[in-house]
């Protein structure tokens, strides 16, 4: 998988964020991290089960809007 390598400046910025997060208690990290917004198609059924993970990935690729980012490309 191709990932863009971060610059040194970017890495330093991330490390500052990691330091700040490490000072927060877990309960607070939860409050900042878990969010909820409606995701079209994905949120429109209350239960889905897939035989294999590959089937699930293929379903995401086929059925979900690409901008959700669940497929291989946007």
């Amino acid at each position, binding site marked *: *998988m*191709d*990932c*863009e*390598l*971060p610059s040194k400046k970017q*890495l330093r910025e*991330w*490390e500052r*964020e*990691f330091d*700040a*997060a*490490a000072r927060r208690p*877990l*309960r607070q*990290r*939860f*409050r*900042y*991290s*878990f*969010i*909820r*917004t*409606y*995701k079209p198609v*994905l*949120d429109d*059924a*209350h*239960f*889905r*089960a*897939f*035989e*294999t*993970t590959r*089937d*699930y*990935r293929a379903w*995401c690729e086929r059925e979900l809007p*690409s901008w*959700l*980012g*669940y*497929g*291989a*490309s*946007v």
Partner: protein
Amino acid sequence: MARAFDYAQAEEVRDVFAKEGVRYLFIGKSGAVLLGFPDTTQDVDVFLDSSEENAVQAVDALRQLGFELSDEEAAEVACGKHFVQLKNGPFDLDLIFAADGIESFDQAWARHVDVEGFPVCHLDDMIASKQAANRATDKESLPRLIAFRDYWLRHCKKA
């Protein structure tokens, strides 16, 4: 629409799964958050041992947590589907019985990390899983997650 996952719900998952003897690990970004990764996520993902006994225990635990599973849906969870999406409970939850990029639950369990009683996949496994899944969203978030893994190994793992 279910509300965002909160700490009290995570405690409930931990306690009910422990009571029912469910073998599981937090994985994905929700697992990384437990390890201290500062990011946002909507998903709660748990990786479960795929034995039938464990899946049946998971169904019991999920019902106690408030997930409204019909008998048909419960049977699908128990019969070894690899990936199940639940949006019929107090929060949205993905059940993963076969994780991309991870050979087996036992191997992931051998490397897992305990955070306040929450069993969490090792960051190496989370990264391997995201690399194997190869989703656009993962490609975007992986460099920061890899940087966090390096930071965590230097600072937190030893603590």
